[in-house]
């Protein structure tokens, strides 16, 4: 007697398109997904615990290791949280450098997300074409900070160093060329008939669901919810720039992807404006802060818009030179919360499409 049977499939942790060491235990009926059980923790390093035995400044490099694709934004969130706790005023020029390097980081992260998404769908060329520009962004970041991925550029009260001579012109050059490159990505990836057939109306996410599950970043905005911290609660000097918040309509994979592409355009706009404005701003890039940082007793929560979503830092101080507790709200981790329901009923190929469209980075998921 013939009968059909559901079976399990270990999707990961060693699988080419889980973007790292992420595992999904799939219950499959043929190629259709009955249930999906995400398993994370393969990259857990205990960053939050490690932070408790480091001084406030020493925590900064650990934040790099979370979302290593947009390290500056991770630095920024932590540093601004501590500054908030201590009430430190950051010099003007440092703020601009933070914006420029932060948006460059966002650009690098989104370029990777765009390219890797093309790879997930099966277009290898899209991946490497995006990497071509990402490489240039990385070179710029390297010139600024001395490091390509783990930047550790932000310091409590400013940034590590001023931009090297001519660096801003190089950034401007790339930013001026960027719109053409983005048009190229749209021609190669976004406009492709098969790409659209694969991603449109796949993994749709209703705005209510997205809000209820506390999703953030492009995943939330693709569902049509206009919530970008840079606009809603401008931190740093984001209120000085003119940019738009790209929104999606259907909340499907395509919208999530396309939101990121359009966010790159906005990042370019922000950087261009920042370069214009920083010309008139001189002065130090580091505020006068004590050698040994001892924030007053108390706690602080500060959140910023990272490349993957809202990253929040909760820092508790007991008055000593080491934080009593650091907790991070990691957008990649929280955005995964709805994965199971999102995957049900779809095919194996869609698992890759949906997971890719959420754009997780395992360093951040597992922390």
């Amino acid at each position: 007697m013939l009968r059909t049977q559901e079976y399990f499939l270990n999707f990961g942790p060693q699988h080419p398109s889980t973007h790292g060491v992420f595992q999904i235990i799939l219950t499959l009926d043929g190629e259709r997904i009955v249930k999906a059980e995400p398993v994370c923790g393969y990259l857990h390093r205990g960053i939050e615990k490690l932070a408790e035995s480091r001084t406030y400044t020493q925590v900064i490099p650990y934040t790099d290791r979370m979302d290593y694709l947009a390290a500056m934004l991770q630095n920024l969130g932590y540093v601004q949280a501590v500054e908030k706790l201590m009430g430190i005023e950051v010099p003007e020029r440092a703020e601009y450098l933070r914006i420029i390097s932060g948006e460059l980081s966002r650009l690098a992260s989104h370029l990777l997300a765009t390219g890797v998404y093309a790879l997930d769908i099966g277009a290898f060329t899209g991946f490497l074409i995006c990497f071509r520009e990402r490489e240039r962004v990385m070179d710029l970041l390297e010139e600024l900070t001395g490091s390509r991925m783990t930047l550790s550029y932000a310091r409590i009260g400013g940034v590590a160093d001023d931009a090297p001579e001519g660096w801003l012109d190089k950034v401007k050059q790339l930013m001026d060329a960027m719109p053409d490159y983005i048009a190229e990505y749209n021609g190669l990836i976004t406009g492709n008939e098969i790409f659209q057939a694969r991603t449109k109306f796949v993994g749709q996410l209703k705005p209510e669901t997205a809000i209820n599950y506390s999703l953030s970043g492009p995943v939330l905005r693709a569902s049509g919810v206009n919530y970008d911290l840079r606009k809603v609660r401008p931190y740093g000097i984001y209120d000085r720039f003119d940019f738009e918040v790209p929104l999606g309509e259907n909340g499907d994979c395509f919208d999530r992807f396309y939101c990121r592409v359009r966010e790159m355009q906005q990042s370019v706009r922000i950087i261009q404006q920042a370069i214009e404005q920083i010309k008139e701003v001189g002065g130090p890039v580091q505020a006068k802060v004590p050698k040994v940082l001892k924030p007053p007793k108390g706690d602080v929560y500060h959140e910023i818009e990272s490349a993957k979503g809202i990253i929040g830092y909760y820092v508790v101080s007991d008055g000593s030179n080491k934080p009593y507790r650091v907790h991070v709200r990691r957008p990649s981790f929280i955005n995964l919360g709805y994965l199971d329901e999102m995957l049900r009923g779809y095919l194996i190929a869609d698992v890759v499409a949906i997971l890719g469209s959420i754009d997780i980075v395992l360093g951040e998921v597992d922390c």
Partner: protein
Amino acid sequence: MLENLFVGVADWLRSLLGGLGTPVEINEAIVMLVKLVAILVFILLNAAWLVYMERKVAAYMQARIGPNRVGPKGLLQPFADVGKLICKEIVIPRKADIVVFLLAPVLIFVPTVMVFAVIPFGKNMAAIDMNIGVFYLLAITSLSTLFLWMGGWASNSKYSLIGSMRVVAQMVSYELPLVLGLLGVIMIVGSLRMSDIIAAQEHVWFIFTQPIAFLIYFTAAVAETNRCPFDLVEGESEIISGPYTEYAGMAFAMFFMAEYANIMVICAMATIMFLGGWHAPFGLDFIPSWIWFFLKMYALIFIVMQLRWTYPRIRVDQLMGFGWKVLVPLALANIFITGVGMKIYQAIGW
């Protein structure tokens, strides 16, 4: 001289053997053997260099340089790769069906090699000019489904199993539009013999009289060889490598080479059926026929490679939908139009 280079070599061999005083049958057998070995060597070398070509094409499309270290311009890279693969251990999964598992990569080359027997690489350059050449080719190429399935099944891995299920679904579905697409040409020629089909294209290539058939054939053929955008069988971002997942070393390389040999087959077939085979266009007869054949074939292979490095992968339900709802009806319509057109032509008396 160049035109009859290979025929000349064969004749020279015959006369050489004739001078030895051995019986004619043995001489013919030796000539046949030499032909076979020549074709085999040609296929293997070609498959190896097609891998190189693929990597170079991909590299230039992706703003890279590609292999450039081994030999001039990296031309010897395929041999370095093959050398490495031969040296590697063939890992056999513990729960695999060992006999079937090892048989699959050996057998995968059989249909590919058999097919080359009927392909005319130039004027009078087919090993056998069979009167059912096209039918033979289609029948033999369908066999490779079985061997891919064997490999996936015997691996006893879920990813391989899903891959081999896809192989069967995809290859069986696309066989139909492939054959129906070719039918238009065969109706016009009225023969399954390759040389007849090529002879019928002396003035007008069938790509101009049967453009839809060409598109259907080419699309279905790309799907038959599991190439992007129809590379669901491998689908590396979904099911790792499909039926090949558990294979290592030379066993994997056999599948890999067979894929490239198959691309050669489908492009050679498209050349024969639609691009006038070895006929020279614009009366450029001074270039030997076999050079024309290879030029056309490699041009098509180049297109297949460009497709791969441009398009994303289609999904499995879309693949089936496209095959059965678009290609098959289109192919049937093409046959109908061709039939009506032929009758009208006959009525006019052309």
